[in-house]
């Protein structure tokens, strides 16, 4: 692995679920040995980091986000040695590994909680948040509105209530207790010493509770993160924290601190607005989101994404925007879940290749580190008839053969049904068939990633928004160390003309980055570009 303390800024991250990726032992679910076998695919795709969903021992009542042992591997995924082998093989291919760390809560099956509920005198009792009444912290909202009616759950063993911001089987840890902080650092050190490159910190806004507040984004929560970051910098200077804080940018900004909390944080509000912009055929939602995005410390970076393992969350939109998104993207009510839409990228775009490409073009060119969700690079579909978010966590579709090439098990034994409908079924949408075509989505994604990685402008550069009269055209200039890239995207389903004020870059020649063709030199006049439906250009502006 080449040393690069800012590797996370230059990375293209690929998010996957070990269980869903490849089953090498024929038991119906993926494991680390299988994932290791598919690392060449990821290398060939061009991604530079893999983010793994939780693989720890767990009762799997929340797909692994209910951890019952932080320093082991769920037996279904293999052993710690299997993980170490995977890690080494990934590093050998210059692919870094980011793992999940669910800081906020454990499973109710975790021994810590079992001890805590077993006796009020147990030292672990204070590792969780207890109350004699469900009246504390009343101002905290309920996140999983479809399933939970309160943030307090009654524990029949100790006859008291425990606090949970997510499912009731996920009791929140008590970060007011220094022992909890210390133990969580020990967990981090365990994985970092093994070689893990980054930790995605799940649900960080909710670590600490205070009466009279929303119990989100509290100063005390930031103190916890500063404590952990300080330990990290002291011991592992090249490692990275990625915060999951589904909040407005000005609130998320706090999770970067003064570059002394998290290195990265997801930009949640931008994601739905990219979809909205394409549906509205208007750049306004994206421009508004970026306008409201505060500057962040130089070493920090936004993590941007189109889809992930959760529903397309609509928490960070207005009620009107949410209604609009539901009406346009969740016409089938089964697609709705909590405050979001449980669909993959391709179905959201009605398998329109042009729109899928445009969204990926935005993902790869807007400020931030792009994160691709497994299967979206081939346009996989989903299954809204499966419960919770399982419909977007179905097996990876490797080929058109037995079980999509995912597993040799009997189909009935698979952890999840395959996508098999005529539009997105594995017989049609799979890696093997797309590898055979230069014009497949997979081939196109490889090229896109290659071009993205050909420069550091996208990963580190500044951005200047342009404001052509035509609002259907989104245009901006990225710049880093004297290198400039012009991005122009047509958000509309119809051909558009745009006149760009590029006079600041007068004299430069736009070189189209995918084909390498030079365009007319920029002069004193507005620069006229015509774009086909959903078409986009990336131009390197060169002094020639």
């Amino acid at each position, binding site marked *: 692995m080449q040393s690069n303390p800012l590797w996370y800024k230059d990375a293209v991250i690929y998010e996957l679920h070990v269980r869903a990726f490849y089953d090498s032992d024929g038991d119906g679910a993926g494991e680390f040995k299988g994932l290791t076998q598919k690392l060449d695919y990821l290398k060939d795709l061009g991604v530079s980091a893999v983010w793994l969903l939780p693989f720890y021992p767990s009762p799997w009542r929340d797909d692994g986000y209910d951890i019952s042992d932080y320093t082991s591997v769920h037996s279904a995924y293999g052993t710690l040695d299997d993980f170490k082998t995977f890690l080494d093989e990934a590093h050998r291919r210059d692919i870094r590994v980011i793992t999940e760390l669910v800081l906020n809560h454990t499973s109710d099956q975790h021994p810590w909680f079992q001890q805590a509920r077993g006796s009020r005198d147990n030292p672990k009792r204070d590792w969780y948040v207890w109350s004699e009444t469900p009246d504390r912290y009343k101002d905290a909202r309920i996140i999983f509105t479809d399933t939970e009616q309160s943030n307090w759950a009654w524990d029949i063993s100790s006859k008291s209530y425990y606090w949970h911001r997510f499912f009731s089987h996920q009791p929140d840890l008590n970060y007011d207790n220094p022992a909890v902080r210390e133990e969580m650092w020990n967990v981090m050190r365990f994985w970092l010493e093994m070689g893990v490159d980054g930790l995605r910190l799940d649900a960080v806004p909710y670590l600490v509770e205070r009466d009279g507040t929303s119990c989100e984004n509290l100063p005390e929560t930031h103190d916890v993160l500063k404590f952990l970051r300080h330990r990290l910098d002291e011991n592992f200077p090249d490692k990275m924290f990625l915060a999951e804080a589904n909040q407005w940018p000005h609130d998320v900004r706090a999770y970067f601190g003064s570059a002394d909390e998290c290195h990265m944080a997801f930009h949640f509000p931008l994601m739905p607005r990219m979809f909205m912009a394409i549906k509205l*055929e208007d750049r306004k939602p994206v421009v508004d989101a970026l306008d409201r995005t505060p500057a962040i410390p130089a070493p920090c970076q936004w993590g941007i994404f189109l889809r992930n393992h959760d529903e397309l969350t609509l928490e960070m939109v207005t009620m*009107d925007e949410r209604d609009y998104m539901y009406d346009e993207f969740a016409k089938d009510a089964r697609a709705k879940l909590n405050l979001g839409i449980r669909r993959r990228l391709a179905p959201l775009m009605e398998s329109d290749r042009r729109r899928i490409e445009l969204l990926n073009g935005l993902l790869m060119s807007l400020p931030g580190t792009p994160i691709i969700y497994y299967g979206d690079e081939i346009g996989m579909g989903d299954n809204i008839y499966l419960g919770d978010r399982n419909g977007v966590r179905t097996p990876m579709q490797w080929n058109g053969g037995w079980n999509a090439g995912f597993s040799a098990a009997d189909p009935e034994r698979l952890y999840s049904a395959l996508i098999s409908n005529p539009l997105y079924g594995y017989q049609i949408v799979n890696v093997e068939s797309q590898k055979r075509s230069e014009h497949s989505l997979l081939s196109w994604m490889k090229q896109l990633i290659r071009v993205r990685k050909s420069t550091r402008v996208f990963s580190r550069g500044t951005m200047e928004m342009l404001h052509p009269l035509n*609002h259907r055209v989104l245009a901006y200039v990225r710049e880093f160390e004297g290198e400039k890239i012009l991005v122009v995207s047509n958000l509309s389903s119809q051909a558009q003309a745009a006149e760009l004020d590029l006079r600041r870059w007068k004299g430069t020649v736009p070189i189209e980055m995918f084909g390498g063709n030079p365009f007319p030199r920029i002069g004193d006049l507005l620069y006229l570009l015509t774009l086909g439906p959903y078409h986009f250009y990336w131009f390197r502006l060169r002094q020639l």
Partner: protein
Amino acid sequence: MAETAQLSDEFIRQLSAVGEVDVLVGIPTFNNKDTIERVVRAVQIGLTKYFHRDRCVLINPDGGSTDGTPEIFKNASVSDFEIMLTSNPLRTFHRVSAPYHGIPGKETALRTLFVAADLLRAKACAILSPTSLSVTPEWVESLVRPAYRENFDFVAPLYQRQKFDGLLVKGLLSPVVRAAYGARIREPVAGDFGLSGKLARHFLDKNIWDQDMTTFGLEIWMTTTAIVDGFKISESFLGPRIQPAPQFGQDLPGTIRQVVGALFKCLEMHESYWLAHSGSEALPTFGFQYDVALEPLKLSTKTILDNFRSNIDQLVPVLESILTPATLVDIRKMIDLPDKQFRCADELWVKTIYEFAAAYHHSAINRDHLLQALTPLYRARVSSFILENAKAPAAKLEQKFEDLGQEFERQKPYLIDRWTAKAGGDR
């Protein structure tokens, strides 16, 4: 299709940046600096509040204002939506302002808007007067929604007017349209109205844009053409309508020449339709018709009556060419009535108007002179109406107008007789 060459390059450039739209709102202006900002702000809020998902554009064709109206149009804004609205706009709010080519005037501006609606493939349009002091964001919704969502093609406004405001509309234009065309449209010549994109294109296709009538009476032509050509028409209640300081009689001859002349001309254009049509129907009306206490217009009947009496004698030779002897006798009888007993009955008024219409049709005399001769008679009718209803409540006034409408309908056969009679043969 009307030529589009009247659009300037700059206008086309701005329109091409807007692209296809769902809703187009037009505000034609000419030196309206005192009122335009309020109207623009109301429209912006209205579009955001009621059409925040839809593709909207606000267009201001300007007739060459020299008072800074276009600049005020461009800069008028609502910055804090959160205070005023429940929502922020989802889309870019477009506004286009450009001077139009041709003779400055509302008709050229409307033509420009219709061309823009055609180019942008607008589904629904609303045209708003730049001078209304009482415009609200709800006007936009009321005028657009029936065309956009309810499949209507023409949306006439329904105002709550000050007492005695709009007597020319209520006492002449509306009842004539009702009797002739069969549609009980209460504001047939309004400056605020809605229409479908389909109807805008239909208007453009008509070969009237280079005729004189477009200089004066486009509104009545649009209303009656929409009826005759079978478009779906509705009304929307907008609430109070307050315009800057109206003055009764201010260029009344000019107004009558323009508006009544346009009405008579429309009757000629559409005679095959209305001659064969009988009865009338109320229109579907949108909006809750609430009442707001409005100050009545203060009109001096003495001045109006003096004006009538001093002019009528010298007009008798002209009136003899227009009216039947019996009608003229009845009119002359009014001259000597004392002020308090001065009356021009509905029956006589309707008969008079129909005889004027027929005379206009037969070109009994120069048409401008004919329309000029109507002015003192109109003054007489207004005086009579005010005197008779000085203390009448609003509801009773509405009943009076309904009675008048029925009288126009009752006497329609008389109009047909006069209209179809050989010119001058039976006076």
